[in-house]
């Protein structure tokens, strides 16, 4: 499976141990599910000849990744059928992730929108079927082109998809993304290692601290920090709690997209109960940014276990009720059974991971296959389904919530004692007791807090099983207080790329059911 494909602008990098001369590097990250191994291929490119042959014929999901590399770095992929911009507007000038492109909006002329500019932009947003090799009519029908989004109630955010319709049947469709591109990867190049943590929360914005985890684990690998058992267990506990709130949001909106109004009111009530616990522990609801390099922001407060126990006791009956009322409901079953179904081979060809992959029966969960942060110490199962249809994707997430509750119960029962910060010079922010020894320790503390820690020049990669699939951070350090390049691989990006293949020949309501069942948020697609 092609797990990831992107590039690095090497022109300003000084720590390049044994790497060939290059201005840009394109990397292909391949992952074998059966062998549970990775290979990363890197291709050195010179500025004068920024082009490579496309790999779409081998890996179908390279399509969007190559478009992104073109958009962000200006690298041409010869033979690519539609090498257009994907994240930036088509009227944009320049390639943002190049080192010579400005990062801040305030470095640039302030944004203005004139009446004329509005006309021009609207013109550029116009969908032209010919650009995508689509016909406006067949021998016996005129096709209708339906523009769904960028703002549509069932599109879960700023997502646009243009449908080519013959009656109500979808002949073909073209997803259009980039309406939610916040430039998180560029942002990482100007924030210190420490101050980038809050930005990670906002990648999969319903995943909360789950997003901190791959980032801090990758930084800890670079720094060589080993954390205590308590830190690991608290991290796992908070991640699983966020997995539950995220899945509850999924369940409510998924059923609402199918036309059931009430479930969203019930699941949001449960989410509120989850947030009560999260808020008591972290002090924030959605984006706590609570993990730190080498530890946590603070220790668990007194009385956290009774709160958590109350939540763990509350949920099982509710989950059973959702199953009874919704998943056993014949309307829901008719709308979702055998809809947008795909098998494991198809999923792997498109780079699908997480619950959507496991709904096809493929047992690949990083918490079991490549345990991180102490998951190997927990007793839980990986739920699987068989058909890989919209129904299985919904049901599987209910089962996953049950397993997360099991993990939470084990955390409550066996929370290890210990420090909430690792004993290491690069732990950020450093323990306060160390500062108060003498003037030297005070200065060191001051530098580490104001400029941030300096990490050795190296590369590290960490992937985790996030709420929506595999989320990974590939960090390149150039021996400085900031990251040289941060590549964020998000699960929702390939999930959206797969839509056209699944929907050809389907109906519009099937598309809505499928969109609901993918479980994506746009920030997790466009970053």
């Amino acid at each position, binding site marked *: 499976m092609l797990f990831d494909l992107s590039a690095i602008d090497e022109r300003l990098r000084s720590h390049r141990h044994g790497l060939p001369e290059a201005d840009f590097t394109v990397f292909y990250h391949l992952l074998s599910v059966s062998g549970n191994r990775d290979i990363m291929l890197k291709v050195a490119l010179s500025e004068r000849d920024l082009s490579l042959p496309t790999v779409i014929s081998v890996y179908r999901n390279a399509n969007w990744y190559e478009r992104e590399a073109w958009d962000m770095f200006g690298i041409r992929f010869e033979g690519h059928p539609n090498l257009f911009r994907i994240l930036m507007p088509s009227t944009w000038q320049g390639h943002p992730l190049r080192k010579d492109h400005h990062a801040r909006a305030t470095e640039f002329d302030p944004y203005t929108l004139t009446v004329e500019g509005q006309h021009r932009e609207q013109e550029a947003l116009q969908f032209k079927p010919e650009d995508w090799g689509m016909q406006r009519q067949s021998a016996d029908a005129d096709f209708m082109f339906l523009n769904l989004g960028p703002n549509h109630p069932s599109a879960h*955010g700023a997502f646009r998809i243009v449908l080519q319709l013959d009656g109500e049947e979808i002949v073909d469709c073209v997803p259009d993304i980039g309406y*939610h591109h*916040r430039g998180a990867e560029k942002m990482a190049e100007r924030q210190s290692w420490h101050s980038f943590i809050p930005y990670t929360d906002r990648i999969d914005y319903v995943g909360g601290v789950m997003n901190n985890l791959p980032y801090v684990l990758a930084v800890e690998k670079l720094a060589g920090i080993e954390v205590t058992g308590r830190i690991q267990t608290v991290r796992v506990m908070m991640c699983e709690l966020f997995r539950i709130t995220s899945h509850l*949001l999924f369940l409510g909106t998924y059923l609402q997209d199918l036309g059931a109004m009430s479930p969203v009111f019930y699941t*949001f009530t449960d989410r509120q109960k989850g947030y009560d616990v999260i808020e008591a522990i972290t002090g924030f*609801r*959605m*984006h706590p940014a609570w993990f730190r390099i080498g530890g946590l922001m603070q220790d668990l407060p*007194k009385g956290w276990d009774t709160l958590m126990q109350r939540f763990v006791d509350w949920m099982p009956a509710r989950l059973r009720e959702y199953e009874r009322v919704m998943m056993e409901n014949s309307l829901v079953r008719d709308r979702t059974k055998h809809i947008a179904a795909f098998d494991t081979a198809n999923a792997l060809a498109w780079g699908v991971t997480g619950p959507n992959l496991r709904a096809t029966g493929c047992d690949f969960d990083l918490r079991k296959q490549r345990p991180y942060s102490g998951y190997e110490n927990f007793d839980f199962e990986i739920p699987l389904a068989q058909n890989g249809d919209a129904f299985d994707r919904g049901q599987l997430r209910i089962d996953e919530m049950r397993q997360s509750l099991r993990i939470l119960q084990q955390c409550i029962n066996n929370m290890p004692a210990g420090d909430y910060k690792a004993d290491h010079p690069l732990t950020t922010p450093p323990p306060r007791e160390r500062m108060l020894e003498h003037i030297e320790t005070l200065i060191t503390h001051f530098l580490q807090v104001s400029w941030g820690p300096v990490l050795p020049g190296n590369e590290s990669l960490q992937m985790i099983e996030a709420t929506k699939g595999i989320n990974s951070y590939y960090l390149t350090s150039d021996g400085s207080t900031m990251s040289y390049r941060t590549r964020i691989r998000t699960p929702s990006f390939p999930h959206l790329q797969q839509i056209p293949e699944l929907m050809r020949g389907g109906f519009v309501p099937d598309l809505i059911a499928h969109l609901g069942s993918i479980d994506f948020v746009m920030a997790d697609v466009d970053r």
Partner: protein
Amino acid sequence: MTYTLTRVEDALAAENDRYPLGERQRVEDPMQQQVHRSVFTGKLEEVLNSTVNWGRKNSLWPYNFGLSCCYVEMTTAFTSPHDIARFGAEVIRASPRQADFMVIAGTCFVKMAPVIQQLYDQMLEPKWVISMGSCANSGGMYDIYSVVQGVDKFLPVDVYVPGCPPRPEAFLQGLQLLQDSIQEERRPLSWVVGDQGVYRAEMPSQREKHRDRRIQVTELRTPDSI
């Protein structure tokens, strides 16, 4: 508006009058002077205005529009634990043409800005805009090439709700502030009565209003217990 006035007494016919009978003259709208001449009808305009505003502010229909994280908290405000129906704003409309106000809940992207403008233009008057969250207010923590530094660069904003993201309660407070401001607004009562301009009241700054009370807080709760 001018009128053609025909008085009843002039219609009494003399022998040599021609048809049509009566003398006609062009005059200004008589109500114009009448209304302002008496204390009672002057009050009537007040009463009418506040009745209409009362109606408007208590049945605000939001446009179902979300951009990012803030939209999740906005949706949370719509569900049972926070229950926005208490403020008469639970009728989410999927079409901008049926909506009264739009909440810019999330980051305003350069690629999305023309789309937001288009949707705003499709909304019918009277319409209002709430900017929810730091990104929509000012760009927030995203001072980056792809983000417009505040939605007020191209839309007129009525209420700013701070936070990243704001709590659902903060959104509800923002909604109530919008309601207060609508109560004070002066819009034409019809397309023939009065000045056709929209007069938006300058509302007091919340920061200044609450500063004295806020700086009195000296003891903060420790985070060590729940």
